[in-house]
């Protein structure tokens, strides 16, 4: 039952929203599907939001970390005496205390990576510039930093590794316990790529492609306020961790305590994008400090700290790519060696070594794919999930392959995509490694994007630009945002792991005065969960979103949550709202039963609407306001029969069904929903300076039922801005000594208001047959802007030497180099034709 898309377009203002809404699968349209203005905004526009650094406690100490200036060195000695003598300093924590009082964090990989010892502070050795070596706590922020400057650390420099291929040689080994720099390696081989290559009319060989290192740099840096209760041995972390479920799984064993002793509380968070998942090392140090000093302690990370030591996105080099292409342009398969650089410590890694397999074929129908995957560590900041985590890197590979094959074989990039895209009628489509693309019409989405960008006029605009001495280029970037992570894919990396499936929990209750109260285990950082959850509950209980109070943020003790609680992997629409829907339906059932009993009517005669439980088409007075139901159950229930005990308070755990994965063939449902985003860009290059300007941009999104279209469109805008920044300027660059050269916003340039082109956006709705509300997760976006801008640059350079874009970040100096020496990049590509 795939929807019939239509090309009727609303050509409107620069950022018009084109809505082609089809019949929702699940619920009769109420608040779901409407751009309800967000509930969160009222406090945020008055500066009354509560971010962790806003929270104060009496007697609170401020923590500052002493960080390594060396990228790789032995720690000979740490002397904190001068710091402790400073008036107003409360205490310090050093690596040896961490080694005594805590255990290394749980490692997911098999040998050798699994043997890596990852402590909360550097123990005996520092492995990247900025790595925390000691922590000091004092009465004011400034004093804490003064004290940090008095801590003397003696280092003995060691050789530095900043290149993954160099690291692979194991001449310098970062982790002696592992004995090798390889964190994980394995081969994924589906179909028969050798046969496909043998039968191909053309084999396109690409020696090297490089996906660069960058991150989403959320505007609010990481941090926490930690309190220790000596009586109960419990810690309360008022923080901005975006995945407390897994955070607790790491921290509790390290602190040698039970998971329930760690209470994570989040209020408002200033953006996460995956970069606030691996905060457990610093948080464990704060827990030790709070317990040691017997006072609340607070740490705020500053921008340079975040760039040098917090989450970087996966940097991945693709080697020896071979693509099998038939004469008619059909691509039957490819093979590649992928080398992933996860920095000094594999924290959430090696999961990145499998998560790309959720989108193994990209949007294409080739059946024969072999990926020889290896992940190594280097003396750079540790990697953590970053918007588009691991799928973005792989989708960039498939889009680069398609555009290089098109350029080399003289095929039209639109035609070669339409020929090779998975077709709408093939949906639900099983990929070569057993994932199922649930719904979508890639060709139709591409048509909307081409229409928005006025594809027909490209050649005309190219001539006009040339008359002004500018090189015009057009590019497409097609991506899938796989939503809802099946942690069972970790067993494809390490069969001994006891991790699989996924879950999220929510509770809904009707209070004594009839107020609807919702709690969720998710951790929104700007996605508007309070509003979309309220829309779903309102439609199920028959009231308005204003009557639904969704508690802000996460609270391990007072809000429902589950083992995998958090906000990541584009899964809120599925698991978050799925849990809310489940709980609301249980409460609805109670309300209908109770109303039927009170109004003496059959259950199916009762309807919930406009904040009342009433008899359908019944008399005026046969209607009970929610308040009446709440009052009965909570404060006036004597008259209820003994065997009838409605609680009007239910918790529901949404447990998406993935089935088991096959660890032999490395197949299985690694995720469940696939939102599509097709991006198209037109750029103009100044050939004298290499400067790239985006002159037209369109993005089309298809994520099934859109609970709140405006919020969905906001995510598309944000993902596009992150991608444009990465494509043109955002890059973590290290020199050969392991010093990060782009350590702050001075040299790490993120797009400002004037850098962003006007975005034209379009939308389609192919409901998901598997998601509870037909809504697919879509927050990450898959990096469409990186793919289409790289393709547009390559298209523009065809008229000036035909250089091949080989990396995902192309600032002016790199484009200029490609203009000076196109052959250097072309030598990378060969076509062998039969």
């Amino acid at each position, binding site marked *: 039952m795939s929807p019939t898309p239509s090309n009727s377009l609303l050509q409107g203002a620069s950022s018009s929203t084109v809505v082609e809404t089809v019949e929702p699968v699940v619920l009769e349209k109420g608040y779901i599907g409407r751009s309800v203005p967000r509930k969160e905004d009222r406090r945020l526009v008055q500066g009354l939001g509560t971010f962790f650094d806003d929270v104060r406690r009496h007697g609170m100490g401020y923590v500052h970390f002493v960080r390594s200036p*060396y990228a790789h060195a032995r720690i000979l000695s740490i002397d904190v005496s001068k710091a402790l003598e400073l008036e107003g300093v409360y205490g310090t924590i050093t690596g040896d205390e961490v080694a005594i009082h805590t255990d290394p964090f749980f490692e997911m990989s098999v040998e050798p990576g699994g043997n890596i010892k990852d402590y909360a502070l550097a123990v005996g050795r520092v492995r990247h510039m900025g790595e925390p070596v000691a922590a000091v706590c004092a009465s004011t922020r400034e004093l804490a930093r003064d004290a940090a400057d008095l801590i003397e650390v003696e280092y003995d420099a060691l050789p530095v590794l900043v290149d993954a291929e160099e690291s692979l040689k194991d001449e310098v080994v970062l982790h002696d316990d592992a004995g090798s720099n390889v964190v994980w390696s394995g081969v994924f081989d589906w179909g028969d790529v050798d046969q496909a290559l043998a039968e191909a009319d053309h084999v396109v060989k690409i020696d090297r492609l490089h996906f660069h290192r960058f991150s989403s740099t959320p505007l609010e840096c990481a941090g926490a306020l930690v309190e220790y209760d000596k009586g109960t041995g419990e810690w309360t972390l008022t923080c901005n961790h975006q995945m407390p479920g897994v955070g607790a799984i790491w921290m509790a064993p390290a602190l040698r305590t039970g998971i329930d002793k760690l209470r994570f509380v989040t209020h408002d968070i200033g953006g996460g994008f995956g970069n606030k998942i691996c905060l457990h090392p610093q948080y464990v140090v704060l827990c030790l400090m709070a317990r040691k000093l017997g006072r609340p302690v607070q740490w705020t990370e500053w921008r*340079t700290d975040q760039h040098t030591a917090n989450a970087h996105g996966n940097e991945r080099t693709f080697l020896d790519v071979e693509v099998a292409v038939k004469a008619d342009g059909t691509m039957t398969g490819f093979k590649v060696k992928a080398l992933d650089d996860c920095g000094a410590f594999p924290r959430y890694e090696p999961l990145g070594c499998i998560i790309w397999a959720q989108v193994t074929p990209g949007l294409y129908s080739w059946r024969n794919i072999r990926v020889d995957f290896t992940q190594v560590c280097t003396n750079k900041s540790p990697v953590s999930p970053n918007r588009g985590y691991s799928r973005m890197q792989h989708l960039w590979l498939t889009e680069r392959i398609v555009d290089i094959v098109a350029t080399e074989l003289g095929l039209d990039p639109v035609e070669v995509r339409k020929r090779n895209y998975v077709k709408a009628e093939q949906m639900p489509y099983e990929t070569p490694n057993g994932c199922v693309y649930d719904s979508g019409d890639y060709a139709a989405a591409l048509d909307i994007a081409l229409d928005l960008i006025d594809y027909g006029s490209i050649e005309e605009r190219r001539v006009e630009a040339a008359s002004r001495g500018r090189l015009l280029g057009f590019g497409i970037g097609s991506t899938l945002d796989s939503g809802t992570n099946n942690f069972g894919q970790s067993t494809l990396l390490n069969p001994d792991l006891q991790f699989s499936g996924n879950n999220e929990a929510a509770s809904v209750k009707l209070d004594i005065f009839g107020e609807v109260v919702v709690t969720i285990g998710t951790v929104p950082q700007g996605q508007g969960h309070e509003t979309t959850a309220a829309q779903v509950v309102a439609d199920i209980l028959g009231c308005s979103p204003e009557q639904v109070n969704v508690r802000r943020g996460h609270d391990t003790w007072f809000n429902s949550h589950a083992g995998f609680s958090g906000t990541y992997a584009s899964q809120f629409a599925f698991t978050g709202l799925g849990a809310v829907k489940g709980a609301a339906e249980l409460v609805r059932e109670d309300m209908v039963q109770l109303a039927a009993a009170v109004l003496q009517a059959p259950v199916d005669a009762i309807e919930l609407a406009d904040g009342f439980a009433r008899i359908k088409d019944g008399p005026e007075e046969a209607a009970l306001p929610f308040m009446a139901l709440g009052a009965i159950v909570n404060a006036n229930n004597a008259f209820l029969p003994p065997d009838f005990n409605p609680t009007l308070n239910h918790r529901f755990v949404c447990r998406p069904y993935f089935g088991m994965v096959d660890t032999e063939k490395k197949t299985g449902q690694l995720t469940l929903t696939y939102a599509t985003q097709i991006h198209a860009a037109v750029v103009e290059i100044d050939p004298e300076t290499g400067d790239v300007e985006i002159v037209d941009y369109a993005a089309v999104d298809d994520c099934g039922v859109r609970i709140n279209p405006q919020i969905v469109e906001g995510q598309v805008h944000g993902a596009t801005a992150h991608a444009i920044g990465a494509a043109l300027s955002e890059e973590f660059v290290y020199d050969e000594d392991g010093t990060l*050269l782009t350590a702050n916003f001075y040299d790490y340039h993120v797009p400002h208001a004037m850098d962003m082109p006007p975005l034209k956006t379009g939308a389609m709705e192919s409901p998901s047959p598997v998601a509870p509300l037909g809504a697919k997760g879509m927050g990450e976006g898959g990096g469409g802007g990186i793919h289409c801008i790289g393709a547009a640059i390559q298209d523009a350079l065809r008229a000036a030497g035909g250089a091949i874009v080989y990396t995902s970040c192309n600032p002016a100096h790199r484009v200029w180099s490609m203009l000076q020496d196109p052959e250097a990049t072309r030598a990378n590509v060969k076509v062998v034709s039969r």
Partner: protein
Amino acid sequence: MSGTKELSAPRETVWGVISEPSEMAKLMPGVESFEITDERHWTAKVKVPLGLGGLKMTMNFEKLEERPLEFASMRAKGQGVGALMDMTTSFTLSEAGEGTSMVWEADVKIAGPVGAMGQRVLQPIVNQQVSQVLAALEERVAAASTSAEG
């Protein structure tokens, strides 16, 4: 970074300055105090004038290689608040008529927050400090040669 400097004084005088730790210590810009640990090691407390304010550092010097009158190389490791410096310098002397032709080489690495100010500011700052050391060296040599003649 490297260059040559023509000095009017004869090689013996130049050598007398280069090989003498107490002389070399005074060359650092903004030196506040220094201490000779032994014939091949000495430390200096400096406040490098960076225009916008001083950068306090303790510099530990170590002689690496010495071939009297011909070649001298040394290494300086500076540790301060906000910066970490690792500098190896070498001087090669050859006779040039009455005076001396000195080829100098300096390899300077800076790490830590000061590096955060952007390389394009840092590189010129390091060049400035090296040229100031050379100017001071020239002065010391000139002073030494006049006192030698006197």
